[in-house]
């Protein structure tokens, strides 16, 4: 809390910014109690990459035949999402059992308090009531501030397109789900490595699994409270740092940037006050200047002023 106090005193000194810093931010939109999520169990994932194929197919991205996705040579290097993929699976060495590598699927985590939603200049991102974070191409101006803001480095951008480049990331298959289907990756997963359900429920399942098989899982549900919680959560037998999941603090991703914004702009009070102050200053100094000029011009009125 030391940090915040320091900020407050400091900001108050310049622009009375502390006025409204307690105001709740707009992205605190009410989330449904029934909002959904996915629990990824890396112990159950076999790295078949069928989810990658299903995702591409569901989102009309170019994909080769499903059989080609069994090729495990792609695991030789760590991969990230790009303009042609919204999810990828990576392979890591298993510390518990060298013969059995760990596979980790990555995609947008659908944060509870998303930084992209907070940051986007035109509000092209939206946190839906059901938990999904979606992007609206009709608004986006391509500034890539969402990519700067995202703590998981998820959104990708079409760098080689001059016209209508897209920001891409997992959309939690909102279209499919609106039609009563499961997310494509969950649907195809042969091994129950991806469990879809109410977020609340998933946290309970994850805790049970971790507790019941404490030798197989480390006691950490990644995403339960990182950056204020995410819709996608992970359990694993390996330390998440080893699986290249970023070690993140527990405060919501937008951090204090929203408080600062709302502090500076608290109902436009600070800017208007500054405006008024400057106006008064301008008027006073003008009068003084005029008085000095009048006296300097040999005006012998001899009233107050002049000195």
């Amino acid at each position, binding site marked *: 809390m030391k940090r915040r106090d320091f900020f407050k005193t400091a900001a108050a000194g310049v622009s009375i910014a502390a006025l409204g810093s307690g105001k709740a931010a707009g992205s605190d939109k009410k989330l449904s109690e029934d909002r959904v999520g996915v629990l990824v169990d890396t112990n159950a994932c076999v790295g078949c990459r069928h989810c990658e194929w299903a995702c591409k197919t569901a989102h009309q991205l170019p994909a080769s035949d499903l059989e080609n996705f069994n090729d495990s040579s792609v695991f030789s290097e760590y991969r990230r999402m790009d303009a042609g993929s919204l999810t990828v699976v990576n392979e890591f060495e298993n510390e518990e059992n060298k013969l059995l590598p760990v596979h980790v699927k990555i995609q947008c985590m659908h944060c509870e308090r998303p930084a992209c939603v907070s940051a986007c200049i035109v509000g092209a991102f939206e946190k839906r009531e059901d938990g999904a974070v979606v992007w609206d191409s009709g608004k986006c*101006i391509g500034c890539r501030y969402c990519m700067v803001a995202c703590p998981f*480095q998820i959104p990708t*951008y079409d760098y080689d397109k001059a016209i209508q480049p897209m920001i891409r990331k997992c959309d939690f298959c909102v279209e499919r789900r609106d039609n009563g289907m499961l997310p494509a990756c969950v649907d195809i997963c042969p091994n129950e490595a991806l469990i879809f359900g109410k977020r609340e429920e998933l946290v309970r399942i994850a805790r049970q699994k971790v507790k019941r098989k404490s030798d197989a899982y480390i006691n950490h549900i990644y995403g339960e409270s990182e950056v204020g919680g995410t819709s996608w959560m992970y359990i694993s037998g390996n330390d998440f740092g080893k699986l290249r999941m970023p070690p993140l603090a527990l405060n919501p991703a937008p951090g204090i*940037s929203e408080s600062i914004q709302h502090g500076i702009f608290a109902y436009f009070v600070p800017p208007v006050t500054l405006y008024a102050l400057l106006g008064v200053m301008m008027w006073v100094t003008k009068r003084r200047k005029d008085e000095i000029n009048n006296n300097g011009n040999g005006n012998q009125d001899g009233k107050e002023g002049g000195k």
Partner: protein
Amino acid sequence: MIPAPVKHKFLTPGVFVLIIIALNGLVFLALRFIFGIGSVTNLDDVTPWGLWIGVDVAAGVALAAGGFTSAALGHVMHREEYKIIVRPALLTAMLGYTFVAFAVFTDIGRFYYIWHPLIMWNGNSALFEVGICVMIYLTVLYIEFLPLVTERFVGRVNLPDTFAFLNRPIDKTLRYLDSRLSITMFIFIIAGVVLSTLHQSSLGTLMIIAGQKMHPLWQTPILPLLFLLSAIAVGFPMVIFESLIASRSFKMKPEMHVLSRLGGMISPIIGIYLAFKIGDVFIRETFKYILVFDSTSWMFISEMGLMFAAFFLFLSRKITNSPLGLFIASSLVIAGVLLNRINNFIVAYQPYYNPVRYFPSVGEISVTLGCIALLVLAYRAVVMIFPVISREKRDIIKNI
């Protein structure tokens, strides 16, 4: 002392060099608009913002701060003796912000949607605030410049034959504008100062949302304050720097009586900035990162070193009374603030997954240099057409 258009040859060897640099930049700019951002920049999904945002936008906004600091001094506080710097500073700000707006236009992927923030609002976004403030401020700057246009052309509108019929209506419009503006100008002047205070600080808020992706030496909740203070600190040095270059280039005597006094005000401002910066290092206990002495820590040390050097130089009377001393000291502040913006937006951005350290491409550097060259050329052209730079009456008559 009255402002008047500078009478001088436009083309000199230096100007030719600038034109070549500008043309080179325009070539890469064309490529960017034909083949996309990836074709000329080193930007990728890991590093979405680079030189164009760090230097053209962030540093550009800071270096154009002379516009509002000198407007505050000359107009709001009515310090008559500084009036002669207000117009050059206004021109710098006007061209500087035009350049910033153009840089944004170049950097955003869907440049044709640049107007979206006007109708699609997100009050939580620092970028939205910066965008809106910069748009309004740019308009205010153009309005503030209008009196120079009316002053120059009222009673002197003389278009070639084909358009001669427009002479009267244009003259009338200018006269009308002139009469309206003289009554209402104070509204815009104060608005300019308020808008600048807002977006200079919000520019600092921008990177806060990057959270742990930003190196702890720079990631601090007082970033908006540091950005505002450093912008104020670099305002007058930039005015001095330009005034000295203009005097030299146009073979005029430098305005030392004003510039020296202006120089005397700079150390206290830098002092306050440095006090906050150092206080921040101690309160957040980030000095351990300085003592690592890797490339990141050296960037921080350089940025601080430049500001410290400038702080001490500006304290000395000897320095502020000599054109060379003033020039060097001002350059140090400019370099310090430029480096600070580069550090904040480029060096400090070290995300968790970061396989290749970003360095700007030839294309990015060319576009940035090209834009700066265009800016200097535009400045030169404007001061030769409009009454921006003030001189003694007899010098003006002699020159004509």
